[in-house]
């Protein structure tokens, strides 16, 4: 189970199903196989993390699932629908690896942007929802601040609030807390868990951080590079809700250690990363 080359599809109601997906990029005359033979499923309401070395194709995988790029081979379905249909129905919330905030909009206007696009609610309702979300991510004081005057971590949190604003069924998070300090990161992890519990969303989180993956996930998928592929999977059977006391729990340590070991024995091609 744990080190199966292919992660399991999970039980019947798959929110996300990725079947034999590969993606090749053309770099000038060279072809780069970014992903090869990726198959896994995410159950409805499940929290799954993807962990793997830099450049193994994690961002590419999230982009494929959200339909921002098309797979070179294989197929992806979102529940009963295609990726394109799911996107048209605004099922995705995407937290990008870069903050990607629009510089002429205030924090609040950035959060409500996608609601405006969807013409959801009145202007006053959107505003109220935006303020509520900014308060949730600890930015209640910065509602009218433009992105250029926010710190990197604060910009990240605006990005998270923006993704949550559309009440997504599937939350795709690309290293959302990568730029945060350890304390804020742990607070954000607790926050993300509560949002995920409250909204009953399905979550797919890309991370570099073993502790974060264990703390948040029901299941962790381990990837390796050269070409990007799945090399293992780890079930996280820790009780929920989880709080920060878990970080001193023996079971937490055991799972984190297990995951670290999987990462290091998975044939990560370090030389290719540094050549």
């Amino acid at each position, binding site marked *: 189970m744990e080190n199966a080359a292919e992660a399991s599809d999970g039980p019947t109601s798959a929110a996300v199903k990725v079947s034999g997906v590969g993606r090749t990029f053309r770099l000038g005359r060279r072809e780069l196989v970014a992903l090869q033979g990726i198959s896994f499923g995410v159950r409805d309401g499940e929290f799954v993390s993807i962990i793997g070395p830099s450049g193994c194709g994690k961002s590419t995988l999230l*982009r494929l699932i*959200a*339909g*921002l790029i098309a797979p070179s081979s294989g197929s992806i379905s979102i529940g009963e629908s295609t990726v394109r249909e799911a*996107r*048209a*129905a*605004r099922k*995705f*919330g*995407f937290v*990008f690896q*870069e903050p*990607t905030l*629009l*510089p*002429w909009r205030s924090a609040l206007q950035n959060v409500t*942007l*996608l609601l405006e*696009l*969807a013409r959801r609610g009145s202007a006053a309702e959107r505003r109220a929802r935006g303020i509520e979300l900014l308060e949730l991510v600890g930015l209640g004081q910065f509602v009218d601040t*433009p992105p*250029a*005057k926010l*710190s990197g971590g604060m910009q990240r949190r605006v990005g998270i609030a923006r993704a949550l604003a*559309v009440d997504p069924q599937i939350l795709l998070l690309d290293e959302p807390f990568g730029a945060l300090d350890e304390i804020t990161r742990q607070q954000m992890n607790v926050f993300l868990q509560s949002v995920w519990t409250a909204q009953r969303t399905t979550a797919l989180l890309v991370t570099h951080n073993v502790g974060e993956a264990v703390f948040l996930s029901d299941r962790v998928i381990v990837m390796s590079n050269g070409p990007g592929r799945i090399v293992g999977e780890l079930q996280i059977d820790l009780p929920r809700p989880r709080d920060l006391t878990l970080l001193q729990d023996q079971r937490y340590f055991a799972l984190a250690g297990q995951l670290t070991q999987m990462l290091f024995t998975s044939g990560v091609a370090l030389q290719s990363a540094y050549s």
Partner: protein
Amino acid sequence: MKSRRARSLLLTATAWLLLVGAWWLFAAHEQRPGTIWATPGQILGSLVSLRSAYVANAVVTLKEAALGFILAVSVAVVLALAGERYKKIAATTQRAAVAIYSLPIIALAPALVLWTGPGLTTKVVIAGLGAFFPVLINLVQALRTTPAGALELMQVGGAGSWQVFRRVELPYALPILFVSFMTAAPAAITGAMLAEWVGANAGLGIQLLNSMNEFDIPQLYATLVVASALSVAAWLLFRVLGRLFFPWQTSVGAGHHGREGA
């Protein structure tokens, strides 16, 4: 911040003073009949005594330049947007624009006069030709280089192509459009003056020609000063407007550093 600004102003003022002083010394010592130099004092004198002529001619040239500029911006915006919407015609319009730009305006002007007569049209068209190219290439480039992340964000949000244009592509392109105005507006003024050389009754270009023919060297230089002042004013206008309309443009690069007025 304040002191750095003050220092930069002081430096500019000093440079100007030195330049004018050097000019004055040089011109005063080269003063012979038929010489090509006029002292700053003579130039100033001409500006004062012929002030109504300078104003009248400047108004004529400015009108031609402004109409030409508006024409150029309209055509360039339409072409750039059309090229963005229908990618197939983009390459064709680009090539046509380069071809037109590579035509020497000075050679084109007489031909245009033959076609349209020596009226306002010629001046407007030639002024427009000077302003057209920088606006077109900058706008095309700006529309093409919308940050990929912003486009992906709009895609996730299920935005249609009009929404993408209005919410992201246009706001990212507008500040760059205004930067292109900073070069296009002075180019329109130069173009208008050039067009006047081919045939006109009034305008700074004509005043330049007349003062040359009459060997009124102070007037010649004074006309140049007026023309440069107009160009600088046009440049400044769009710089100020750009900063006013798109304040984030200056704050993007500046990050967390203090800004003027912040």
